[in-house]
C-alpha cells in the first residue's frame, strides 16, 4: 500500500481559464512522492464556515522535476469557490495521494474521454501513457467552446477530438455523438473516462456492447477520502465499494450502473 501524506503545499500559480474553471499549481515543501493518474487529493478548505469537509480533487498533472502538481477546479459551491480564490504564496493543505489509479492497457489503441470537470485526470493519464510508449487520443466534451480548458496541453500528447452541446466547437452534441464513436467497428480497443455519471454510463454500455475495455473514474461525494466513513459507496458486483479506496477507477463492467 502506497503511503498517504498530509502536507501544506504552496500555490505557485492560479490560472483562470474560463468563468468556472481554475487551474492551481502547487509546490510541495520538499521532494514530492510518486503519484499515479486517476489518484486524487483531499484539499482542506480554510476560512469557509459554509463547509467543513475537504474537497476531493483529481490530480490533473504532476511535475517531479519542479515538485509541483496541478489541480483543475470547477467552481460549483462555496468550497470550490474558496479554493479557486487562492493566490500565489497561499498555502493549501492536502491529504494525498488517495485512491487507486488507471492501469496500463494491453492495447495501444486507446481513447481518453472526458466531460466537463471530468477531464481533470486525463492530462496526467495522457502523459503517463505517452511515457509508456502509447500515444493516446482524447475526446473532450463540454457544454460550449468556452468550457474547454487548455486543449493545447492535450494536443502536445495526442490528437484531440471535441464535442460541444451547443456546437460552438467540434461536433455538436455529447461525446457519444462524435463520429469516432459511431463507427460500427471502432478503431480503438480501450476507453479511459472520467466525467458526469450519465456520460460514463453511456460509455460503459457502449464498451460492453463492443467488447471494448473501459476504465471509469467515479466522482461520488466524499467525506474522509481514506475508506473510514463509507459515505462515497457505489454498487458493484461485490456489493457496496468505497469510491475513495476501492476506486475511484473501476472496470466499467464491475459497476452496477
Amino acid at each position: 500500500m502506497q503511503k498517504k501524506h498530509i502536507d501544506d503545499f504552496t500555490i505557485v500559480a492560479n490560472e483562470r481559464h474560463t468563468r468556472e474553471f481554475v487551474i492551481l499549481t502547487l509546490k510541495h515543501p520538499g521532494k514530492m512522492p510518486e503519484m499515479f493518474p486517476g489518484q486524487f487529493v483531499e484539499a482542506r478548505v480554510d476560512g469557509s464556515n459554509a463547509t467543513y469537509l475537504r474537497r476531493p480533487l483529481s490530480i490533473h498533472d504532476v511535475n517531479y522535476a519542479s515538485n509541483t502538481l496541478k489541480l483543475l477546479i470547477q467552481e460549483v459551491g462555496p468550497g470550490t469557490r474558496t479554493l479557486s480564490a487562492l493566490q500565489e504564496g497561499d498555502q493549501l493543505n492536502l491529504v494525498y495521494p488517495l485512491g487507486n489509479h488507471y492501469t496500463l492497457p494491453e492495447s495501444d489503441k486507446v481513447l481518453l474521454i472526458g466531460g466537463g470537470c471530468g477531464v481533470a485526470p486525463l492530462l496526467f493519464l495522457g502523459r503517463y501513457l505517452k511515457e509508456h510508449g502509447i500515444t493516446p487520443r482524447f475526446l473532450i466534451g463540454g457544454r460550449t467552446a468556452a468550457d474547454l480548458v487548455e486543449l493545447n496541453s492535450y494536443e502536445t500528447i495526442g490528437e484531440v477530438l471535441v464535442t460541444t452541446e451547443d456546437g460552438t466547437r467540434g461536433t455538436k452534441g455529447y461525446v457519444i455523438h462524435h463520429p469516432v464513436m459511431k463507427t460500427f467497428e471502432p478503431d480503438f480497443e480501450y476507453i479511459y473516462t472520467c466525467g458526469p455519471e450519465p456520460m460514463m454510463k453511456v460509455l460503459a454500455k457502449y464498451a460492453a456492447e463492443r467488447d471494448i475495455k473501459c476504465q471509469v473514474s467515479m466522482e461520488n461525494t466524499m467525506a474522509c477520502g481514506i475508506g473510514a466513513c463509507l459515505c462515497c459507496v457505489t454498487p458493484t458486483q461485490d456489493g457496496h465499494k468505497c469510491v475513495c479506496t476501492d476506486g475511484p477507477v473501476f472496470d466499467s463492467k464491475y459497476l452496477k450502473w
Partner: protein
Amino acid sequence: MVDLSVNLGNLTLRNPVMTASGTFGYGEEYEDFIDLSELGGIIVKGTTATAREGNPYPRMAETSMGMLNAVGLQNKGVDVFCNEIWPRISNRDTRILVNVSGSTVEEYVETAEKIAALEEVPGIELNISCPNVKEGGMAFGTSCPSAIAVTRAVREVFPRHLMVKLSPNVTDIVEIAKGVEEAGADSVSLINTLLGMAIDAKTQKPVLSTVTGGLSGPCVKPVALRMVWQVASAVQIPVVGLGGISSATDAIEFLLAGASAIQVGTANFREPDVTVKIVEGIIDYMEERGISKVSDLIGALKV
C-alpha cells in the same frame, strides 16, 4: 510530566482521547497519519450479527460546519470481524472497543457474546442510538424500557466494560442514562448524531437517499455539551463525551462539563491527525495552568 490517564470504572485509558465509531474505520485507515498508541482508545465501526450493505448512495450531505450521514451500519458482520479484522488489529497498543449494533435484542446479544469470546477486547460500546437503520438502532435508545431491556440482556453475556451510546433524539436524555446505569452499564457515551435532513432546492428532492440522516460536526457541539453536563450531573457511572469535538479546547470543555473521556468523530475527516493534536493541546493547557492530573479537570466547571 502531566498525568493524562483516566478511569472509566473498570477501564483505564492512557489519556482521555478516543475516536468515535463510524468515523475511524478499524484504526488502520489512519495509521499513515498517526500512531494509534498515542490515543486513549479507539471505537471501531458498528458491528452487527450479520453483514449489512447499508443504505443506498447518496449517504452524505455537507452542512454548515458539519455533515449529515446515512451510512446505515454497513459492515461485514461479527463473524468476519472476529475471524479476519480483529486478528489484524489486535496487536495495536491502545484500547480497542467494539461498537455493537442490532435490530433485535437477540441480535445485540449474539454479537456481544461473540465479542466477549475475544478475551483481549476490553469493552464494547452498545449502539442503541443509530438513526440510520429502519428498525432497531435508535428505536432502542429513544424509549426508556427498551434501552434498559437491551442493556440488561447484553450485560448478562458481556463481562467486561459495557459503554452504552445514547441518542440525543429524545425528550429527556437523563432519564435514559439513569435507566441504562441501573441496567448495568459501566459508562455512557453521548451524543450520537442528531436527526436532520437536507433538501436540494434546485431539484426539489432530498439530498440523502434515506431523506433523513444523522447530523455531526462542530455544529452539534453546544447540544452535546449541554447533554453531557446534564447526564454527568445525574449519574454515578463515567460519561464519555462526544459531538463536534475538533480541538483540544473543545475536548477540555467536555471534561469540564463532566466527561471522563471524550471521542473525536467527524473532525477526523477534516484532519486525519487531529486526535494526536488534541492530546498535545490538552498537555499544553495543563502545563500552562499547573494542572498535574487530567482527572482534576473532570466536572470542574465553575457554575
